[in-house]
């Protein structure tokens, strides 16, 4: 009723009160515009994926001669060929590397985040700022020194970290720790303090409080940061390409696809797209199912700020 002073706004006052909406646009028009806006956003997000999907199904030379993605012949040939090139190994390697990185990163980050959020600690603000600074660490700064350290370790101990899972997992953990800590701190801070106080009154030790009271309550936050670490590790290209460039036993999906070489005379467009579909579809399903958790994690910093 506060719109009474301005008659032109009365019509729309019930629908949405958000920012730039012209007060004198008719109801149906503003509705259509909103719907159109949503369509633009959805098309933006999906059209390269649709292109990728259709191209992966087009067989022979048609994908190279006719840009219209709805012109066949269509077949699954590209998918068969990509498995003949052992793409399944790349999928397995990515799963193992990302899984291990997540499994190591999250428990370590949870401990640190709990200490920062809840335990008495000197210089908490400094530590949090340091974590934020560390999230900006450029991965390329690790490439030459780690490469050399790996060579050095091999000459000293005979353990080869180049072309190995550990050679990738170890730096992934280090690179994802700061962001995970940052996200987890915001989740731990959201748990009501009364529950801990209650635990203390009941005589629980700090460790018991962490394990029995805090961790179960923080499970959604822990899951969220686990998802984000996992996606980071499946996405990482630079370190994987530097430390495990060719060996199919350890090569991850981004390296397989990003460095795909033509086999024979044919332009490999269909095969590259088939491999892209095979890795994108599970990740997209993963993202759609866990959408709420992911959004909460990605925006944890922004809302706090």
């Amino acid at each position, binding site marked *: 009723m506060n719109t009474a002073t301005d008659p032109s706004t009365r019509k729309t006052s019930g629908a949405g009160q958000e920012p730039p909406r012209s007060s004198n646009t008719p109801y149906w028009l503003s509705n259509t515009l909103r719907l159109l806006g949503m369509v633009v956003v959805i098309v933006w997000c999906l059209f390269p994926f649709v292109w990728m999907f259709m191209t992966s199904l087009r067989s022979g030379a048609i994908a190279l001669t006719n840009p219209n993605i709805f012109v066949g012949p269509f077949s699954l040939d590209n998918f068969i060929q990509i498995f003949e090139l052992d793409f399944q190994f790349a999928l397995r390697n990515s799963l193992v590397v990302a899984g291990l990185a997540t499994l190591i990163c999250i428990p370590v980050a949870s401990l640190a985040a709990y200490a920062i959020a809840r335990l008495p600690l000197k210089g908490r603000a400094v530590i949090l700022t340091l974590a934020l600074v560390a999230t900006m660490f450029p991965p390329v700064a690790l490439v030459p020194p780690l490469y050399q350290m790996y060579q050095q370790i091999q000459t000293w101990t005979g353990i080869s970290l180049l072309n190995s899972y550990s050679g990738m997992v170890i730096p992934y953990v280090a690179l994802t720790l700061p962001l995970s800590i940052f996200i987890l701190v915001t989740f731990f801070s959201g748990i009501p303090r009364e529950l801990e106080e209650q635990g203390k009154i009941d005589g629980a030790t700090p460790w018991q409080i962490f394990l029995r009271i805090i961790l179960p309550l923080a499970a959604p936050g822990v899951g969220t940061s686990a998802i984000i670490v996992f996606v980071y590790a499946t996405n990482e290209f630079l370190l994987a390409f530097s430390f495990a460039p060719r060996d199919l036993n350890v090569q991850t999906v981004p390296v397989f696809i990003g460095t795909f070489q033509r086999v024979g005379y044919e332009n490999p*467009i269909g095969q590259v797209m088939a491999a892209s579909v095979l890795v994108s579809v599970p990740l997209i399903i993963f993202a759609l199912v866990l959408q709420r958790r992911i959004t909460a994690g990605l925006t944890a910093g922004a809302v706090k700020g």
Partner: protein
Amino acid sequence: MAIAQSSKARTPQRGPRSKGSGIGERALAKIFLTPSFTFMAVIALFPVIYAVWMSMYQITGFRQEFTGFGNYSQLLSDGGFYNAIRNTFVFTTVSVAFEFVIGLMFALIMNQAFRGQGITRAIILVPWVIPTAVAAQVWRYMFSDNPGFVNGLLGTSINWLNDPTWSMVGIITADVWKTAPFVALLLLAGLQTIPREYYEAAEVDGAGAWRRFWSITLPLLRPAIIVALLFRTVDALRMFDFAYVFAGYSNSLATLSVYTQRYLYAEPELGYANALSTATFIIVMIVGIFFIRLMGQQTVGSEKGKKK
């Protein structure tokens, strides 16, 4: 285990300032922080220091020869290095600017929507979750002039991948496609914290839509905007995937990350690679710290405030 027992024994309050905590909690805090700190010190901090040290050497195979600042003087007179800096900064400024404007538009659209917000919020994650190297291949093929999807769409006949300027436009387009939705997500979260009453009050005062946007939305969105710009800028500065997949080590697109990586295998010169990685580290950190200072009181201040 030992900690738990010792703290149990001392349960009676003895901390002068904290309410119910004793030495147990303080010790626990240190113990909890140790694994993270050790990990980052050994795997991130030490390599950076090691890189500074190694950048003083000329390394060929297993032979190392001390050259002092030789690599750095080579770097300062290396056209490829300046070219990489230029490419990196052109890519960063243009792509972040577009990502911000398009991301803000998307956020406003989604915030207005009364229907379909759930599905859009899910779909907007699709570009984010597709690995960058995969997205790069998709865009490279869409730009390639053989099937010519982009050319077909625009009715042009541009040789996108071989012309340095147009291929820069190509990777910027690809990056904007992939990350504008991510920016939208961050800004949307910020938009949803703005109380509706502000808009209602402004409307009563007769403020138009544009005025409300400039006087309410933008100022109140400032913290979210700074966070989004920080993440995007730093991420764009260290970009490797799009540039490498589009053009390999070619100078036309080589960013600092690509140019550094090139001295690992393509032209093995590890000492120089270490000098380049050190320089990149310094450049990215300077920009990042500038942003953090910008948001200084805002984020850190409110974090501190929250925890009393």
